């Protein structure tokens, strides 16, 4: 039986090996960059937790208590994230995956299918959480001076914990599929995931973690944390694993290790067996349901068409057809329009951050500080626009998907095609960036000079950011992704973010000098010297050149690479 399950997993293992073996062009650079960023993130997490835990440890009485509470919160978060991601992966693995057609046409064994899909689903949804949680657990181990037994205990408690999360997630997925068509369900769940991420993001931001560094407020924070009633229900598996590790880390704080360990293993095994029974009883029915076609009821949207016709009137028919098609697809595809929620979350948090800046507490003169912050705000706004562009401009080319043959075999040149994508995204981004910068500067109450500088700079920067997004997206298109949210997660997306940061950084650095001279002259009522005027001219000239290069080069690079792209 298990041999058959392994046999079913065999193609996955081989495919994974082949992906490493048959590398494409530039894959070493990609691998190096991705590993570099992974390591940096990993190291960053370790440093943060190391410092927080060292700090906790230095506090008498409360320290261990806080560390234990933090651990409970971490496992509770993992518990919910893992169940949720298992629901998503289980729907694909158990019901939508193409290989199921092949497997079901062979004399397959239910148990083998169940075990292979269970393993696939749990591994797919857990590896990333596991990988990025390692620095957290290592920092606990280092701070509380643990040896090999701690890591062994961590491993042996983590395995059943992952199985419990997996089986609960898969069970939920099966229940849902029994009642709804799986393909429609995937859209709904995708939407829920986005909401889930946004809520977590908001919750974290509104907890105001910056209060931890404010000595005035620190003791109230400790009081607050201590008073937090972290769910310590004895029925939650996250609590069992917390108790196992806490017993090891803080000696006497929690109950016996063996009892909790047995709880974890027995629950995991029992859930696995019960889910197997459930799988056997519902699978075929649920599978049949996934094969039902989707019927769509669409409004003709005549009013909407008329507005589009009017707005797009100056463009040629091919350009209009591309823009109209993109707009239609955007509003019909849940995966696309739901990205707007992420955009809103980014913008709201950004505006909130600006609005809560403690301007009055600083010893520097308010006017001076306002302008300095407004200048830094330019860089931040650029970063926000890049974060939005990576979700909208960067995937613009990849969104053509496997239908890209239609564009490439048509008389519309790739250059015109890329310009279509550029202008649609630019218009959207420039309106957003100008509204953001004017609104945040208004919140900061900056003077007219700084306002003018900000408006012009962000306008020029948006050309570069959009061009970088479209150019990188065209150079590294991903036409075959199942989910559009995956598009920016590849090498091209990373490259875009790095280049966008370098671009924004260089503009801000080059403009700092001239802005300082202008502000000082304004502030002191003194004219700018000739020497400073030369410096201003050179630096602003460089700013213009960089903006021009950032506007032209990425589009040219993307066009060249897309022209040679033949895997369609």
């Amino acid at each position, binding site marked *: 039986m298990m041999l058959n399950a392994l046999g079913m997993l065999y193609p996955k293992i081989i495919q994974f090996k082949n992906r490493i073996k048959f590398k494409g062009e530039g894959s070493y650079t990609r691998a190096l960059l991705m590993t570099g960023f992974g390591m940096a993130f990993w190291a960053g997490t370790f440093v943060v937790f190391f410092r927080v835990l060292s700090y906790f440890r230095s506090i008498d009485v409360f320290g261990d208590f806080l560390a234990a509470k933090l651990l409970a919160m971490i496992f509770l978060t993992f518990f919910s994230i893992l169940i949720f991601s298992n629901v998503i992966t289980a729907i694909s693995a158990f019901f939508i995956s193409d290989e199921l057609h092949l497997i079901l046409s062979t004399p397959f064994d239910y148990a083998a299918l169940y075990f292979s899909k269970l393993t696939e689903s749990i591994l797919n949804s857990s590896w990333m959480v596991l990988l990025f949680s390692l620095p957290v657990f290592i920092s606990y181990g280092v701070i509380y001076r643990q040896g090999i037994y701690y890591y062994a205990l961590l491993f042996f408690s983590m395995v059943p914990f992952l199985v419990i999360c997996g089986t609960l997630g898969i069970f939920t997925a099966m229940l849902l599929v029994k009642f709804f068509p799986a393909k429609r369900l995937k859209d709904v769940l995708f939407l829920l995931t986005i909401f889930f991420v946004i809520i977590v993001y908001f919750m974290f931001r509104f907890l105001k973690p910056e209060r931890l560094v404010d000595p005035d407020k620190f003791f109230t924070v400790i009081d607050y944390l201590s008073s937090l009633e972290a769910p310590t229900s004895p029925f939650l598996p996250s609590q069992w694993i917390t108790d196992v590790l806490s017993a090891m880390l803080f000696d006497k704080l929690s109950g016996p290790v063996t009892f909790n360990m047995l709880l974890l293993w027995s629950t995991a095994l029992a859930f696995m067996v019960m889910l197997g029974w459930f799988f056997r009883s519902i699978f075929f029915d649920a599978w049949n349901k996934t094969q039902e076609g989707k019927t*769509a009821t669409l409004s003709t949207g005549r009013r909407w068409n008329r507005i589009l016709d009017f707005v797009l009137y100056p463009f040629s*028919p091919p350009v209009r057809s591309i823009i*109209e*098609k993109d707009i239609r697809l955007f509003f019909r595809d849940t995966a696309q329009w739901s990205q707007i929620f992420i955009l809103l979350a980014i913008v709201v948090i950004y505006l909130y951050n600006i609005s809560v800046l403690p301007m009055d507490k600083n010893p520097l003169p308010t006017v001076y500080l306002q302008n300095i912050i407004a200048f830094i705000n330019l860089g931040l706004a650029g970063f926000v626009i890049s974060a939005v562009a990576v979700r909208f401009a960067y995937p613009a080319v990849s969104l053509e*998907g496997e239908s890209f043959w239609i564009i490439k075999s048509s008389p519309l040149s790739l250059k015109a095609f890329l310009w279509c994508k550029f202008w649609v995204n630019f218009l959207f981004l420039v309106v957003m960036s100008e509204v953001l910068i004017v609104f945040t500067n208004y919140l900061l109450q900056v003077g007219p000079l700084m306002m003018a500088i900000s408006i012009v700079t962000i306008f020029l920067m948006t050309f570069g950011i959009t061009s970088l997004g479209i150019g990188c997206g065209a150079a590294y298109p991903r036409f075959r992704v199942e989910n559009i949210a995956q598009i920016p997660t590849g090498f091209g997306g990373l490259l875009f973010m790095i280049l966008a940061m370098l671009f924004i950084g260089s503009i801000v650095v080059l403009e700092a000098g001239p802005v300082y001279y202008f502000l000082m002259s304004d502030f002191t009522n003194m004219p700018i010297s000739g020497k400073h005027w030369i410096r201003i001219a050179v630096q602003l000239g460089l700013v213009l050149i960089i903006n021009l290069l950032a506007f032209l080069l990425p589009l040219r690079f993307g066009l060249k690479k897309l022209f040679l792209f*033949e895997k369609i």
Partner: protein
Amino acid sequence: MIILENLTKVYPTVTAVDHISLTVKKGELFGFLGPNGAGKTTTIRMMAGLVQPTAGSAFIDGWNIVSHANAAKRITGYIPDRPFLYNKLTGREFLWFTGRLYGLKKDVVSRRIIPLLELFHMNDYVDELTESYSHGMKQRLVMASALIHKPRLLIVDEPMVGLDPKGARLVKKIFRELCAGGTTVFMSTHTLEIAEEMCDRIGIIQNGRMVAAGTMKSLREKTGAAGKKLEAVFFRLTGGDDVGEVIEALRF
């Protein structure tokens, strides 16, 4: 209408198309045959502008497919073997999209859509999203979209895959009528009976090289298969007709 001169496509590990030269006249229905992996689809994709040739040149109605790609594409209709479409567009919207993509005015698209829907029997489902279409329905839609700008050359990769007998008969009839009206059809297929029945001339490619091209009569003469079907000619040119070996291999 089509001139291929030493057209070549080399990939890092394989030469997919190796110095192919060929001429197809206006109004001709040319069948392009060959075993799997012979280079048919690569040749077709080069002609459709999806893949760039490594060497050699190709002309469509006098336009070089590399230096004047858009002019060549403007008079070409392309039907791929796998009809990938925009899933969230309806069939009608897709036809509008392709018509406009080829630069047609609104009234022209509007006028041409009606007979195409009739011709391909799509009226019942044309206002549904294409994601709910079967392979055959998608294939019909792609064919209709390839004809909307009235191309002078139609390049078709495996036209009969996924079509029911009624659809296949319809397609055969459409291709013949298009040729009678002066349109050139360049078609790759594995169905030898269809090629024999429909094509004015047939080209056979193997390992990226053109092994023969001509009318059925000239191919029979060349292979010494007088009076025989295309199947016999095909196997004589490409090998692999040793059925005895196959039967032996199946006795494992």
